[in-house]
Structures are given as structure tokens and as C-alpha cells.
């Protein structure tokens, strides 16, 4: 790929809903035409802090749902954790406030041409893009199992209507406050075996993705993951979001996760390379 999502545009969009759900805010934006082109795995980049903000960089958010019809024209929905300055500002906005949005950005989850058995693994707000993906997979006749994990119950994002589109839903929390006690990778092997999983889709913190890849490799399943590196621009011009990825010819290159990702082939990513360039990387 190595090119920006050719559907990406920039516009001021209105907030039409902002509701607290557990530890997150579910936010809906009247995003017009942008919504029509959004695919599961894509993200948007939003300016934060208003006109005299000291925060100069956009914040990236995975698209939870996108719909191109309805009362407000196209809408884009996000699940936002009020974490730091930027996300707290965003989640504090009111209905009718406007934000500047660029999207849809990045790669999307690949959809198998045959009906396969798919397992969707989400950590924290990483579950967001998986529900739209589940719907599409179901439409294609896939079996869809979902496994969501978080530290505590409030950080599991799993709305009712989302649950409907999966064959099974397993939840783990580290403190056991809901679902099974433990991490997603504790139950991952048994789920793969039970459901004869052929492809894993994952989204969540980098540590979780790396652990999922390890299991995936053991079972020889395909694994598409949506990575989350810090991004200064989201459109491929700053090079701050790179991670080492093996290309088709086997060469490891520092690859932009905003345009050659966030969805990547788990097998190609060189994991656990935080704070260092892996040996053998091209140009190192």
C-alpha cells in the first residue's frame, strides 16, 4: 500500500451524541460523506483543545461504527477513553459542538472470500472496531466468536446490539469483576480449539497483540491486528508511528502504522521492538 487512504477528507463535524458507557464515552458525529467510505479497522484523527489549545497534534480514534444514512446523513461513532488532556477535552464536549476530523484513515480488516471461523479479540476500547467487523463477517456466512478483555468490568465495551452479531462472547477481566478472571491469552487457546478458528482479528494494546500473535503462530491461524503506535499526524507525513515490519521480500523495514496500518498481518510485525530498532532492519 504505502499510500494514504484515498478516501480521506478533512471537515468540521458536529457531535450529535455523547454518552458515558462504563469507563468510556460513546460519541456520534455527523460526518457526512466521510462515513460512506469508512471500513472496520479505519480510524479518524481529531484536533483537540479548541482554537487556543496548547495541544498541537491530532488524536487518532478507531471507528466503532459508520453509517451513511439516517436523520443526520452519514454518522461516525467512536468509543473514547477519557485518558489524558486531549481525550478528556473531547469527551467533555456537548451535543452540537464541532470538531475538526480527518478520515477515514489507514488500512481496514481484510474480509475472507470464503465463510471461515473467525475469532475477534479486543482489549479495552480495542473492542470498538470489532463489532462492525463482526456484522460483515456474519453477512459473509462466517462463524464469529468474540473474546474481550480488560483490567476491570467498566473497561469492557460490549453493547447489547453488538453482542447480537456474534456466535459466542467470552469476557475476561484481570480482577475478575466480570467474566473469567485473567487475560485474553489465558482462554485464547481453548477458544481456538473449540471453535476451530481459522483467522484471528485483534485490536488492543501492543502487549496484548504481541501475545495474541504468539498463540496464533502456535495454532497456525491467520492473524490480522490493528496496532496502536503514537501518531503525530495520522496521514503518513511525520514518521513517528513507524514499527518494524517484514515486507513481501522478507526485508524488515520501519513502516508507518498510520498508512500501512493500523491493520497489519500479525506475522509480519516484529513484536516487542519498543525503544530499539531490531537487528537487520533495512537502513539500520
Amino acid at each position, binding site marked *: 500500500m504505502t499510500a494514504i487512504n484515498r478516501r480521506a477528507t478533512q471537515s468540521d463535524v458536529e457531535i450529535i451524541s455523547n454518552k458515558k458507557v462504563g469507563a468510556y464515552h460513546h460519541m456520534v458525529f455527523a460526518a457526512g460523506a466521510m462515513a460512506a467510505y469508512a471500513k472496520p479497522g479505519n480510524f479518524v484523527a481529531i484536533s483537540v483543545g479548541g482554537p487556543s489549545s*496548547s495541544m498541537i497534534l491530532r488524536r487518532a480514534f478507531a471507528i466503532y461504527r459508520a453509517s451513511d444514512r439516517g436523520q443526520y446523513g452519514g454518522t461516525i461513532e467512536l468509543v473514547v477513553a477519557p485518558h489524558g488532556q486531549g481525550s478528556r477535552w473531547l469527551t467533555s464536549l456537548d451535543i452540537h459542538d464541532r470538531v475538526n476530523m480527518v478520515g477515514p484513515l489507514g488500512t481496514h480488516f481484510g474480509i475472507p472470500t470464503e465463510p471461515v471461523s473467525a475469532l475477534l479479540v479486543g482489549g479495552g476500547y480495542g473492542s470498538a472496531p470489532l463489532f462492525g467487523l463482526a456484522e460483515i463477517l456474519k453477512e459473509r456466512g462466517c462463524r464469529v466468536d468474540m473474546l474481550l478483555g480488560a483490567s476491570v468490568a467498566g473497561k469492557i465495551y460490549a453493547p447489547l446490539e453488538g453482542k447480537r452479531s456474534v456466535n459466542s462472547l467470552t469476557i475476561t477481566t484481570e480482577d475478575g469483576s466480570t467474566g473469567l478472571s485473567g487475560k485474553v491469552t489465558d482462554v485464547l487457546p481453548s477458544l481456538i480449539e473449540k471453535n476451530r478458528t481459522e483467522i484471528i482479528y485483534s485490536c488492543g494494546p501492543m502487549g496484548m497483540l504481541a501475545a495474541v500473535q504468539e498463540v496464533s503462530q502456535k495454532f497456525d491461524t491467520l492473524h490480522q491486528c490493528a496496532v496502536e503506535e503514537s501518531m*503525530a499526524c495520522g*496521514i503518513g*507525513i511525520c514518521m513517528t508511528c513507524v514499527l518494524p515490519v517484514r515486507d513481501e521480500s522478507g526485508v524488515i523495514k*520501519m513502516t508507518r502504522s498510520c498508512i500501512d496500518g493500523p491493520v497489519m498481518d500479525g506475522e509480519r510485525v516484529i513484536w516487542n521492538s519498543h525503544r530499539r530498532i531490531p537487528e537487520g532492519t*533495512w537502513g539500520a
Partner: protein
Amino acid sequence: MNHDFQSFDFRCKFGSKYFPYPIFTASGCASSGKELSQFFPLNEIGAVVTNSIALKPRSGRATPSMAETPSGMLNSIGLQGPGIDQFLEDDIPWLLSHNSRVVVSISGETVEEYASLARRLRVVPGLSGIEVNISCPNVENRGMVFACDPVASRAVVEAVRRNIGGELPIIVKLSPDVTDIVAIAGEVISAGADGLALINTLLGMAIDIDAQRPKLAGKTGGLSGPAIRPVAVRAIYQVHAAFRNTPILGMGGVTNGRDALELIMAGASAVSIGTANFGNPSAPIKVKEELEVLLKERGFNSVNDAVGVAHEK
């Protein structure tokens, strides 16, 4: 005042080359242009200044290579790039075929590397200029940054001048992290620079108080964005005061037309947009349009008439 009937001259000039608009991208802040072309036509700005390109492919530095700071950011990208060969094969033809004017930024680790890069570029048709990024560690002198050393700065510019031939303007990009930027400017001008680019990033650092270590994997990084604009304006003002005839490509925290005009009134003949592109991919076009309105409102018939006016009052 009514200037409707007068034509407005938005051109700027470096060496022998005219550029139709005084707004450029800043090196390292537009990749090789392709991505921004989705937001505006690249020939609507003066030129794309490419990422600094080295002789060999470079992986850049490990992540995290970015940290947001108040009204600014730190980066330690470390000049990631494919090396001059692949760059000339892929990026330049694409830019030229899209009618973009191209200024190639070069970086080296030795004087000889700069010379080689200049020789490679000399034979490339269609380029509009070369920006010499001397904020790079000099491996022959304990890694001391060229731009911090007048002797090394001069040596690089002389080498580029000797090897580039007469046509292509040489714009030398200086670091603000020096005791006397006017002295460095003097050296590189007398060594043959046609113009100066001011300023590169300031050396900075941020610490993660939870991990208890520097936020960037590379520890220090370059500070850019609106936070540094006052330093850019000062550097441009000082250098323009000393060398009125050398055009300056100004940069440092420009996000809108007012900021650009501030740099121009301080002495910049044109302005590069860097970090602002990350927050707003249409920043260069926005700055250009706002600048035109501001200049006309103030009765200027050309951008050139506004260059350095703050020195006169």
C-alpha cells in the same frame, strides 16, 4: 486603499530561481509530498522541501520518537529514508510529474557525503533547489553537529558549492542551538550559500515521570511548533539585519497567515510549514491564502515589499 487594479506579486527568489508562492513545506514534515497532495494540489505552493535524504538507506531511530509538549512537539525521527538512489528513482519523478517544484534537502555524516549528494543531484533535471541540512552529527569530529561549528559548516557548504554547479540555488539550514547564529550565517554565506533556512528544531527532552526515563527512545529530540516561533523570529531578525541581501526561508511554528507574516516582516523571503501540517494537512494552503489577504489589507503589492519591514520602524 484600493489595490484591485494592481497585480499582486507573490513570488520569491532564491539564487537564480523564482518560486510563484512564498509558502514551502518544511523538510521532514511533508514526507515526499504524495500524502499531502490528497488535501491540496502541490503546485499551489512554492515548493515541496523533501525529507533530508542521505546517501544510504536509514532506518531512523526507535520509537517512541515523538512527544507532544506545550504548543510544541519533540521528535527524534533520525532522518529515516530510502537513501538517495531509491529517492531519485521513486519520489522525484512522482513530484515532478505532478508539477510540484522540488527542493531536495540533503544530510550527511561527513563533508564528503555532502559532496557526493551534491554530485548526484547536479545531474537531476527539473529540481528547483537544494537545502543543506547541517544539523547532523559530524562523525569525523566526535559527532559534533556541523551547524554548531563554523569551520565544519563552511566546509560542508564549500563542498556542496563546488559539486553542484552554477544553476541550483543552495539554501543552508541553520540550527538555533548556537551562541552566535549570525557568525555561522556569515561563514556559510561567504562559503557560497544562496539563501539560508532558519530555523531547525531546538534540542529538547521530555521525561516520563511514571517510567522514570526520557519519553523518547533516543533521549533527546528536536523541539518544533508554535512554542519556538519567538526564537525563529529572533534568529531571522538578527540574520536579516546582518545580511540584507541573502534571502531567508523562515520556519518555526507557523500555523496561519499571521505567523507567516511575522516571519516575513522579520526578514524571511519565504516561509516553510512544518509541524503545522501534522495538526492540519491543509495548513500550507491555508497559510498561503491568509497571507495573501493580510498583505493586501496592508497595502503591499508584493510579498517582497513586506520582507524585513519590521527593521525600519
